[in-house]
């Protein structure tokens, strides 16, 4: 292995990258724009849900409950209606997505120390809205109860308001917090595959790869020389996209910086290796592009990026283990949101290492096998 030759290859690659007018845009600008765009797609429906209020109680308590909803940012009260019967057309037409029904006598019940039921009706036609909307509603009611109890400064027998939500209760986490880490990984994968898959096949098409075989250069030297400049660019991209995603969407970073960085770096290498492999076995650039498409579609569907793996049929579930993004998502979501450490994420991290070893091993074999056509 000659460092001098590797350095020369890297120098050559950097000159070419610098002269490629599309590359910087494709590699740095586009992922950030995509992240922001897709981020909003995820974010837009869970905020400012149009809400109708049926206040049959008309007391200070009912008004403060209403303002707790409208002040949360998740619900925007757009209608006040006189009776529950008037709600149906509003929900049917989609004018409102959520309705809050405060029955007569709510304040009286609370004052007597009884439990006061209220109704929350959520438009179930959109599972995203129903799940998230009802989750927020429950949180707001719980918060309202806590504040009221604290204000009274006494121990109450009954918990206070009991929110009866009409659709199932779906947890907890702000979806944007789990979506952004996933998006970062998915966008990285798309752009790295797209660029890396062209790297070698471009040389095959221009004939310079064949010319390379008449020089003393070795397969590993060629691979290292080819990969290093792209890895440098990919690192810049990774930091930019991760920082962009966190700052723009104010995703709280609960994790250990090094855990996230290790996970991202492992996944980055896997993506670069996969792209390189596609590029090595493709005969033309067009073929390489198609191969990337064929990789991306099952990756998006089966990795758990869009559809939860737990809800897939049992026969399909093992297939998700063949997809690197599956493990990248486990690492990133775990590290970003739950603050999981190396120990908790050892399995997916090792899986990513395994993918890397297999992919790069195959790449070396593919390079050694000469162009036999």
């Amino acid at each position: 292995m000659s460092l001098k030759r590797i350095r020369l290859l890297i120098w050559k690659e950097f000159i070419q990258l610098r002269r490629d007018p599309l590359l910087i845009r494709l590699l740095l600008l586009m992922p950030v724009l995509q992240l922001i765009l897709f981020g909003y797609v995820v974010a837009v429906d869970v905020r400012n849900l149009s809400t109708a209020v049926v206040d049959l109680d008309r007391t200070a308590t009912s008004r403060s409950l209403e303002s707790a909803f409208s002040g949360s940012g998740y619900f925007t009260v757009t209608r006040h209606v006189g009776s529950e019967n008037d709600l149906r057309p509003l929900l049917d037409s989609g004018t409102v997505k959520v309705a809050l029904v405060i029955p007569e006598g709510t304040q009286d019940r609370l004052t007597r120390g009884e439990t006061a039921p209220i109704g929350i009706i959520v438009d179930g036609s959109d599972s995203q809205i129903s799940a998230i909307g009802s989750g927020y509603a429950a949180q707001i009611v719980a918060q309202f109860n806590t504040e009221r109890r604290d204000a009274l400064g006494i121990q109450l027998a009954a918990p206070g308001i009991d929110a009866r939500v009409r659709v199932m209760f779906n947890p907890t986490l702000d979806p944007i917090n789990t979506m952004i880490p996933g998006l970062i990984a998915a966008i990285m994968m798309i752009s790295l595959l797209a660029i890396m898959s062209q790297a070698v096949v471009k040389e095959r098409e221009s004939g310079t790869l064949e010319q390379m075989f008449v020089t003393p250069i070795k397969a590993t030297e060629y691979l290292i020389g080819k990969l290093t400049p792209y890895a440098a660019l990919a690192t810049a991209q990774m930091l930019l996209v991760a920082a962009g995603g966190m700052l723009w969407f104010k995703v709280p970073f609960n994790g250990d910086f090094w855990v996230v960085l290790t996970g991202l770096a492992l996944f980055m290498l896997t993506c670069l290796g996969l792209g390189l492999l596609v590029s090595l076995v493709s005969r033309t650039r067009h073929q390489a592009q198609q191969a990337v498409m064929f990789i991306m579609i099952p990756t998006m569907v089966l990795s758990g990026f869009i559809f939860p793996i737990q809800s897939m049929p049992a026969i399909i579930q093992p297939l998700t283990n063949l997809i690197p993004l599956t493990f990248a998502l486990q690492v990133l979501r775990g590290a970003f949101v739950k603050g999981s450490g190396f120990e908790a994420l050892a399995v997916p991290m090792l899986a990513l290492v395994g993918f890397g070893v297999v992919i790069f091993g195959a790449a070396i074999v593919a390079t050694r096998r000469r162009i036999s056509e």
Partner: protein
Amino acid sequence: MTETANPADPAIRASGLRRSFGATPAVADLELEVAAGAVFGLLGPDGAGKSTLIRMLATVLRPDAGDAHVFGHSVISEAGKVTPRIGYMSQKFSMYPDLSVAENMEFFATIRGVSRADRRTRAATLLAGMGLDEFTTRQAQHLSGGMKQKLMLATTLMHEPDLLLLDEPTTGVDPVSRREFWRILAGLHRAGKTVLVATPYMDEAERCTQIAFLDRGQIKQSGTPEQIKARIPGRLVEVAATEPRAALAAVQGVPGVDSAHLLGDVVRVLWSGSAEPESVLRAALAAAGVGGAGTREVAPDMETVFAYLADSSAGSGNLLADPDEAPGTGVSP
């Protein structure tokens, strides 16, 4: 790299060389010997196996069977000893299109371990000798066809190879640049380099010291251009007439005429009869009422030889078919 060729070893010796693509053999049990210092022309129709042969000799393609030795080193087991002594120029332009002339030369020379001092002096000499010195900073993709070929040759010469393997280096290059290119090759020949060059141009074949006709993966004929031309049976007569097509019709079928075809506005007749061809032909033309006809016996040139050899190996009776009508001969008029 500065090691000179051992005169005992031929530059190339190939035996039983075979390579197939799918079921089609591109090179079939080929035997070849090229003496050091030769300018060896490889002729043959498209698909004859010229590129496949050259790529195997350049070590970029592995033979299915047989072996070839370049300066005594096997292209299969000693590729590492072969590549420093050869310069391979593929049929297609194969430099980095987005690197400049100087960067391409610098890159390929450095990767082959040419020292910095040698790179500088050789690049300057080569670029000046090929008239490329004004374009050193121009990206290769913006060069003209002729300049691209010269850049490839210059890059190939940077490590001073003893054997040049050139696969149709002047295809698609204008006539002036082609002459220029062959002037450079002549210089290399004088400097003692061995050149193996595949070419579709018959005028280029005449400038080689040795030529071989390749057809369907095998060498059918080889020798000096004079030896090859002498192998054409019969005599060649050109018939000029005001109406060449009428003249062609008149001479076809005359006993003694092997074949006749149009080349430009003359009819070329390959004569194998025992009688004097010119008088017989003139009589035939007069009998057919073709006016203004004149005949002239000429020495067979490479164009004719090539067409004859390509046709006779294809089993056609029309020995002098117009090469442009024979598909895939790649001969330009």
